[in-house]
Each structure stands twice: as structure tokens, then as C-alpha cells.
């Protein structure tokens, strides 16, 4: 299992954007033929001011009977696929070339923000008086959602960070640091369906769990925050080449700070995302933006393999990475074999948990 935890060092700031080639390969192998299948994909990056998408391709096998692109209710691009002839394997390969521009400023670490209670109070409903547009936009992410329940237990966990009068951003950074320190990164501990309350009790999980937990804490205090799905550039151990397919999807949190806008926070790594984080989509929680969500008829038991590679284009051009496995390779042969660190897993109850 790869590590998605980076040491919490102060980021050294690049002057320019960093260009990546991201490949995200998913392969389902079904025990019995699947007669009908429909899939919703959140694999294309949404348009944001700090990212420049140079190319995005999606290769799907078998040929879908229906493929259409649209935007979901949160403005994310989504691909709808339908298959209506029997198949026992489904492969989806998303390839993206994207440049991520720097957006982190060290000032963010010094900035405390306005007192958090003031922001919460500002959000309260005040009768038939038009609310400021930014408050209304933020309010979309202020409430409980299917994967993020709210309640006193989460508010209590957040309380030591959110002391009276403390700046909103400072308090949220503190909460992020506590989650980073007090929770163990453990892919075996949870599945995609693990509720945040259980994560809080077990003090273990992966990026998705930490993001959900932090959202539950913030929203239990009445503070709007959203779930961001994307990728993270990981570093191979010193002296070893970068392995293709060894990365994973990543998830973090974005908090609305009045005056500043949305500020991303990565509780898995205790840092404020910058050019190492590639944003795909955002929503209320994992359920809104899961990379691949589908309903199949038939299929029996199935196995799924997900291989993600985040490759800085500079390295790719210099052929610094493992040779012969450029992401353009056919999805049927590519990812699984090269992902040495990742053993095949039998999927429990139809869910895969290849998350970081």
C-alpha cells in the first residue's frame, strides 16, 4: 500500500506551475457475465482558476451503448456510460495532462481569519432579507449529507480547536493538525461506507475518512465546508524509481472563509494543498463525486483493480520513470501488472476501497 502521508514540512514554493500526466485505470472482472451496466464517472477535472487542463482522454472497454457528458448539480463534469451487451470485464482508463499553478501563500499560515462564531452567526437566517451571494453559495455545504452526519460528538471533538473568539482559519488548521496527529492511516480499518462516527471512535482510516470526519466537525459547528476529490503527487522512497500505478485517488476538505473564499485543507497530510494536489471535483461528500459509481445486473462476485499514476511531466519527458509503461498502453495489460505494491483484493459487498 502506497503512502499518501507526506511529512508536514513547509512547502517550498515553485515559481511556476507544475505539469502532470495522471492516469487513472479501473478494471472490473466479474465472476459471471454482466447483462446491463450503467456507470457515472467523475474522472475529468473541473475547470478551476489554478489548473490548466491540456488534454483529457477517456478510454472505455467494452464499447458502451451510451456515453454522454454533462455537468452535475455542483458543476463537476460527469460521464454517463451504459452497457447493454453481456461482458465479464470493464476497463476505464482516464488520462489527463494538467498544469497546476501555485496558489498557496505562506501568509495563509499566519492568517487567523475572523472569529469563527461571527461567521456562523452571519449565516443564520434573518427573515425575508436577501442573504449575501457568497453566504448562500457557502450554505450549500453547511449541512449534514448522506456520508457526513453531524452531531454533538463531532462538535465536541472540534471544540478544543474552536475556542471562543479564535480565527476561523487558525482554528480549522488546528483541527486539521489534530486529526493528522491523533488518527492512524490504516487502509484496512475502513471501507467506502464507514460512517464518520466510527472513524472518530476507531481513530483510524484513510484520506476519505479524515475528510469526512473533518467535514462532520466543521458542519456540526455550523461552518460550511466541502469535500474535494482529486490526486496527490507522492514521492517514491529515496533512491527508488517511481512506480507506475502506485498512487491513489485522494480527498481533502475545502473550508469557506469569508473574505478569502474557499481554502483547501488536507487533514491526511496536515497541509494546505498547493501544486502537489490536483483537483477533480467537489461536492458535499464522497457520494457526490465518487470517481466511479455504477449499478450492474448480474456479474456475481467481482474483483476490481484501480491503478493511479501521477507523473510530473518533466520526469515523464526525461523518461525518468519505469520504462515501457507509458500511460497510453492498453488498459487491459497496463496497470495491474506494474502495480507491485498492490495485491488484488476481493471486493466486499460490491465496494472498492482503493482510497488514500
Amino acid at each position, binding site marked *: 500500500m502506497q503512502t499518501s502521508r507526506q511529512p508536514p514540512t513547509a512547502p517550498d514554493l515553485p515559481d511556476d506551475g507544475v505539469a502532470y500526466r495522471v492516469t487513472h485505470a*479501473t478494471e*472490473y472482472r466479474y465472476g459471471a457475465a454482466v*447483462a*446491463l451496466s*450503467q456507470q*457515472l464517472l467523475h474522472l475529468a477535472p473541473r475547470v478551476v482558476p489554478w489548473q490548466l487542463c491540456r488534454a483529457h482522454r477517456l478510454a472505455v472497454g467494452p464499447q458502451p*451503448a*451510451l456515453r454522454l457528458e*454533462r455537468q*452535475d*448539480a*455542483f458543476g463537476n463534469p460527469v460521464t*454517463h456510460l*451504459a452497457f*447493454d451487451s453481456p461482458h465479464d470485464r470493464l476497463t476505464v482508463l482516464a488520462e489527463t495532462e494538467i498544469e497546476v499553478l501555485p496558489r498557496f501563500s505562506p501568509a495563509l499560515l499566519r492568517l487567523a481569519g475572523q472569529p469563527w462564531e461571527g461567521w456562523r452567526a452571519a449565516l*443564520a*437566517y*434573518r*427573515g*425575508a*432579507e*436577501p*442573504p449575501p*451571494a457568497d453566504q*448562500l453559495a457557502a*450554505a*450549500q*455545504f*453547511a*449541512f*449534514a449529507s*448522506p456520508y457526513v452526519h453531524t452531531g*454533538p460528538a463531532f462538535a465536541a471533538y472540534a471544540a478544543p480547536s474552536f475556542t471562543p473568539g479564535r480565527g476561523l482559519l487558525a482554528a480549522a488548521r488546528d483541527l486539521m493538525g489534530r486529526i493528522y496527529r491523533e488518527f492512524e492511516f490504516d487502509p484496512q480499518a475502513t471501507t*467506502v461506507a464507514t460512517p464518520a462516527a466510527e472513524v472518530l471512535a476507531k481513530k483510524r482510516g484513510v484520506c*476519505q475518512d479524515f475528510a469526512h470526519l473533518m467535514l462532520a466537525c466543521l458542519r456540526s459547528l455550523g461552518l460550511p465546508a466541502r469535500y474535494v476529490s482529486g490526486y496527490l503527487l507522492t514521492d517514491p522512497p529515496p533512491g527508488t524509481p517511481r512506480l507506475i500505478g502506485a498512487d*491513489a*485517488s485522494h480527498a481533502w476538505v475545502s473550508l469557506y472563509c469569508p473574505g478569502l473564499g474557499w481554502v483547501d485543507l488536507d487533514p491526511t497530510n496536515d497541509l494546505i494543498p498547493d501544486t502537489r494536489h490536483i483537483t477533480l471535483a467537489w461536492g*458535499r461528500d464522497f*457520494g*457526490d463525486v*465518487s*470517481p*466511479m*459509481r*455504477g*449499478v*450492474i*445486473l*448480474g456479474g456475481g462476485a*467481482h474483483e*476490481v483493480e*484501480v491503478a493511479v499514476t501521477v507523473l510530473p511531466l518533466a520526469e515523464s519527458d526525461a523518461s525518468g520513470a519505469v520504462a515501457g509503461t507509458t500511460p497510453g498502453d492498453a488498459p487491459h495489460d497496463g496497470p495491474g501488472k506494474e502495480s507491485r505494491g498492490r495485491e488484488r483484493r476481493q*471486493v466486499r459487498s*460490491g*465496494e*472498492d*476501497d*482503493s*482510497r488514500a
Partner: protein
Amino acid sequence: MARTLLSIYPESTGRYDEMLAAGGKVRPHWQSFFDHLDGASPEQMRHRLAFVQRRIQENGVTYNVYADPKGTDRPWELDPLPLIIPAEEWRQLSAAVAQRATLLNAVLADLYGPQDLLASGLLPPALVYGHSDYLWPCRHVGQPGDTYLHFLAVDLARSPDGRWWAIADRTQAPSGAGYALENRLIVSRVFPDLFRDLKVEHLAGFFRSLQESLAHYAPGDSQGEAPLIVLLTPGPYNETYFEHAYLARYLGFPLVEGQDLTVRGETVFLKTLTGLKRVHAILRRQDDAFCDPLELRGDSALGVPGLLQAVRAGRVLVANALGSGVVESGALLGFLPAISERLLGEPLKMPSIATWWCGEGPALEYACKHLERLVIKSAFPGRRIDPLFGADLKAAEREQVRARLQADPAAYVVQELVELSQAPTWSRIHERRLLARPVGLRVYAVATPQGYRVMPGGLARVAGGTSARVISMQRGGASKDVWVLSDEPVSTFSLLKTSIGAKDVVRGGRSLSSRVVENLFWLGRYSERCDHTSRFLRVALARLVEAGGEPSQALQSALAVGDALGLLPPREVAEAKGSFVPLAERLTRSVFDDSWATGVAANLRRLQWSATQVRERLSLDHWHAINRLSLEMQQTRETRPEPGETLAFLDQSLLALASLAGFTMDNMTRDEGWRFHVVGRRIERLHFLATAVATFLAMEGPERAQGQGGLEWLLELADSSITYRSRYLSQPELLPVLDLLVLDEDNPHSIAFQAQVVGRYLSRLQRELGQPEAAEGEGDLAFLLARLRAVDLGRFAGDVCADCIGCQACDELADLLWALAAATRELSDRLAMRYFTHVGDVSHQIVAA
């Protein structure tokens, strides 16, 4: 006289009385009804009550209190006296309801569109973004004609000052209109003269508007074909399933479950025997979050994956629009007056009951202060929290409730307690006395291109006691018909009596859903399985009783066949090796213990289950016979019967099963569904007989006890003893027995007869359903039947076989019969693959990161 009628009718104190004005004077619109009741004789009223009850039972009007395959439906409660509303009052009421419908529809169009109501502060974001019934994926989906609510209901109550108030809105999939229709059909026959003389408004026009409106808004078909509209039900376990079936029949819409529909591309289809048929509109009775596991709740097994995308693409109309549940929230009520001014430019005509959403600071303060005279409810009906009555709470409990409100104020609303008006109901205990009961009224509206049309009538519900605050059919209330009086001639148009021209004549059931056909097939198999299991157990038990508990040779041979068929529970006690269960106990268990999967009880339960699934296709007598049989099973089981009593029960059970077979032959229309039902019966019997006879033949001569009653029980098992005796007038011998049970194609209990009938029906089905190629299964069956016909019986002549060991003739025939049994099993699977939905193979959701 009038004094008798009113002798225990309380003069209203604090409530509005629907019938009596101040001073106990009968209101004008009630006068002629009251006079009629006053003049009616006790016998007349008794007859009327009996008529009501009989009609309810005969029509099978039920309301399931909870889902339970073993439980029984609760009959619908109907008070014969209607709630009467005069014309002028109704005009105002219906105008107000139509306005309310228009308003709620506009609110939905805004919330799933521009959300101006949030931007202008007319609605708090918590009631939309914080509401689990606000379905994000439905945003910007759009609806034809901006119509979100095609069919909605408003619950009304009348306050002591005589005004009607709205207390709740039902915008998802409102229930009760079908019951209202059924109530009308019964009550208008109880008081036919009054119904005519009072010029009561008819309901049929309203339902025709519903049909026309759905057809109007449904997407067109390029071929100009009439749109196919279906009614989507969550299934027989839903509490109002009766109504779904009833409305579907009345409106002429096929009744479907989620698994009957499939989305291909962006189009919805109904799976039928003859293939996929495009569906243009879906009137849904299923909660919206469960309608599409792809985009909405992924854990729903009831939905149609891809439905929302089909709606988005404008390929199907779903009524009401997915996501329309969000405006059922009681928290909305307080905001409606201002929203009405904004969206409609006019004041709200009908007030809502005073309701405060605790998410507003002053409301929370008020709620905490006046808790004792308020009702506390969830702001989000989806959470299904029972209302709390502040007045019932003790001081400490009130403190707890206050703490809950303060912890999450946005999740609660508080409402004023309503004093419902009271209406007269007919007493079943006191002859000729009226009782006064609190009454609530549910009215319905349908969207038409000309605006909302309100049903002139509705469903009135009365409380079980004098002071119930919650009127609920689940808590022992009753319902009433609602008579809206007209001051003009009424339209007597009826949907029930449309005259049918020669071109409208419908025969057969071409758009039978595959699910219905599959259930009919299994109903056939289970009926037959119950029959032969009972028959086997009777054979064994009778011999055990005759022998006084000492197993005879004949019994031993019968038991060997029972074991081969897997009909008997294990001989050995599972926990203690070497310890044996007495035979009588094993046999009794196979009859009554429904945890023994191959026993009579378990198969009877399956039989009843498949009958429930196709209840609308069975005659009432057929349905009753099935229910009676399982009731007798339960009752006999409870008496812990002796073997003799068990035998008597088996006799009865076989008689009842024979009558089921009779209903099949005599009462069911010969359509494809019926043919599958008969094929199911024949397949089951073929499999049973072939296995039984093969097992018998495979035994070595002495084990069969041929000379000591072995052949007698074999004849009995195949229900052919009488035929044999009438033909041969002698002790059974192997050759003639085999002829009768295996080869005689005139004996409806022979193997060749079953094979021949199955073959005939299958080729007819193939012809009619356009299946050109004969699959291997049928080919095998025909081939095996031909081989069977070629069997030379001469080889079984005389006594040679009595003591034979490993004789070739017996072995060959046994092998042939086993091959036939195997071919039968395979055929059943093939039928399922080709014609049925894969019921056991429900779609499931998968998520990958």
C-alpha cells in the same frame, strides 16, 4: 324520532359540528340526509351496514398495517355516512386548494431551478440544502410545462370558527384517492336515492383528467402511438398496495414494480413476454429517493437504474417529479403566505395551521416557552419521527425536549394543536344512534394544461375515539365518503362504464409483465408440489398407522422413494449420533414444520406468496381457498395432532388443492399467463412422477415389496388406484402399472401425458411469442418422449421382475425416466432465462475510488 338518533350525540363544545348548527338545529345541507336516517328502520340500517362490510370483504379492500407474508391484511374501515359539503363552500375550498397546488408547484420549479426564493431570503437555506428530501441530482433536470406536481393531496381540518385550514401537503405520491373511489362505489349504493336527489358531484371526470393530463405531458412518440403509462408500486408489502392495484385497474395503467422496467440508452421500457415496450409516463407510488439507484439512493433495490437520466433526456415523464417530496416539510407552512405574494402575486387563500420553524431564533424562543400547548414535529418528514404533544409531557420530559430543540433547532417545527370538527358516524353497538367523531379531510388535485383541477370529493377520516388528536388508519380510525353537493346538473360520466367499440376489444394479455408470468408459473409449480408432497405423506402415514407403528415392507419401499425425493427430514438426530427420530415424528414434521424446506407447510407458504404477487389475476374464490388452506394448516398445527388427525388434515388439504386446480381450469382466462401456469403445473408433476417411478425401478426386486403392497402405494402416489382397479379388477402387477403410470397418454397422472402436454403448450407459446428456434430443452423432451413411447412393455411381463436383481429392463427404463427428470429441470431454467425477469438477480450498486 330525531331524539333517538341524537340521544348519545354530544352537543359540540369547542368544536365545529359538521351536521348541527348552534342550538342543535340540523344544518340545511344535512337536512334531507338526516330525515332519511330518521325515517329508516333498524332492519334497513342493519342491511346497509352488512352490505358495506360484505362489499369491502368481497372487493378485498385492505390496508396493510405492516408487511408480513404470514400476516393478514386489515380490512378497510368505512363508515356509511358521508361527509356532506354544500356547493358554495366547496367552490371556495377547491379554489383555495387549486391555488395551493399552483403555489407548491411553483416552489418546486424554483428550488430545482433558479432558487430565487433562497436568494431573496423568502426561504431559509436549511430547509432546502439541509433537507434530505432535496435531491441534488434532480436540480436543473426540468419538467415538461414546468409541471412538477401532477397529482397532490392536501390534508384539511376545520377550526371551531368554521374555516378550513391546511395542515399538511402530500406532494410525493399521495395515497388515498383509490380508497376514496372505492368508498364512493359502496356508499352511493347504500343510499342511491339520496345520492341522486342531492345531486352529488361524480368523481370519474377527475380521474379522466388525470389520464389525459399524464398523456398530455408525456413525451410524444414519433410513430404517433398512444403513450404507455404505467403505475409504479413498491410491491405487495406496501401498506396501500390494494390501492395501487385498484387505481391501476381503474385508470387502465399496467401495475409494475421497479424490476419490470429497464432503461436502455435513455429510454424506459417495460419488460413483457413479447419483449421490451417503451414506457412514456410513470405514475409513481414509490418514494422518490428509491426510484433510481444509479443517481439517488444506491441502496435501493426497488428502483430503476438510469431513470433520472431518462427524465433528464425528456424521454419519460415521472409523476410526480423526482424530488418533489421536499415541499412536504411542515417547516414550509409559515413561509407560504409571503412566497404566494411573490410567486403568484396574490394572497394565500387558505391559511395553514400556525406552524413555527425553530430554525428562526424568535420561533425557538416561543416554542420553548409555550411547549405545553404545542405539537413538536420533525421539520423533515423523511425522518419519520412521531409527533410529540407538549401537553402530554411531564416537566422533566419537557426539559429534555427543550434541550433537543436547542441543540438542533433547524430540525424541528412546532404547531398549534388543532381542534378538529366533528361529524356523525353510525354506531355499530347502539342501534339507531349517531356518534360524534373528530374528522379530517384529504382533498386531491390534478395538474391539467388549464391549471389544477380539484377532485369534487375526497377521503374523510374519522378518529376511533371522541378526542383523538391523530387521525390515522393505522390506529383504528375509519374513513368516509365525501359528498360535494352541486347546484347544477351533475355529469354522470363514468370511467367504469365507458362503452367499448368493436375495435377496442382486448383479448389476451400481450403486455403482461414478465414478473406476473413468472409468478403464475411458480404458482402452478407450488400448487402441484403441495399436492404431491401431501400425497406422499398420506401414503406413508396411512401405512404407518395401519401397521400400528411397525414399518412394513411396503412402507420401507415408499420411504426410500421419499428419501430420494428429499421429502423427509433426516432420520438421525443431528446433535446425537446414533439417536433416531421416530418415523411418525419425521412424517408429521414434514407436514407442519415450515422450517423443513421441502415439506407441505413450506411449500404452502411459497404457494401463498406467489399467489399474493398475482392477486389481481385470481378470482376471489381462488384467493379465499388458498387463504383458508393456510389457516387450517396453522390451526391444526397448534393442536399438536396425532397421526390420525394429521391424515385427516392431509385429506382436506388434497381436497383444497384439487379445488385450486379446478379454479385454474375453470376460472382463468386462457392467455399466455395461464399457459405458463399450466406448464408450471405439468413440469412439476412430470418431474415428481419421473423421479418417483425411476427410484422405484432402481430398487432391487425384493426391496420394492411388489407383492406386498409396493405397487399399491405407487398407484396411490400417482392418484391412479381407481383407474387401475376399474381396468384390471385384480392385484396390481408391474406391467399394467407401468403402462398406466408411464405410457398411457390418456391418464392425466401419467408421465407421458405430462410430457406431451408440456410439449404442446411450449410450441404454442413459441409460435405466439415469436420464438423461431426450438431450444435444446424442448428438443430433449420430445426426443425422450419418443423413446418413452418406444419402450417394449413385454419385457416386464409376468413374475420375472418380482425378484429380479439388476434386471436390465428396469435399469434402462429408470435411466430414461431420470433423463426425463433432468431435462425437465433444465427446461424450467431455460424458460426462466428466456421469458422471465431475473427476480433473484437484483441490480446492485458498486463504487470505486
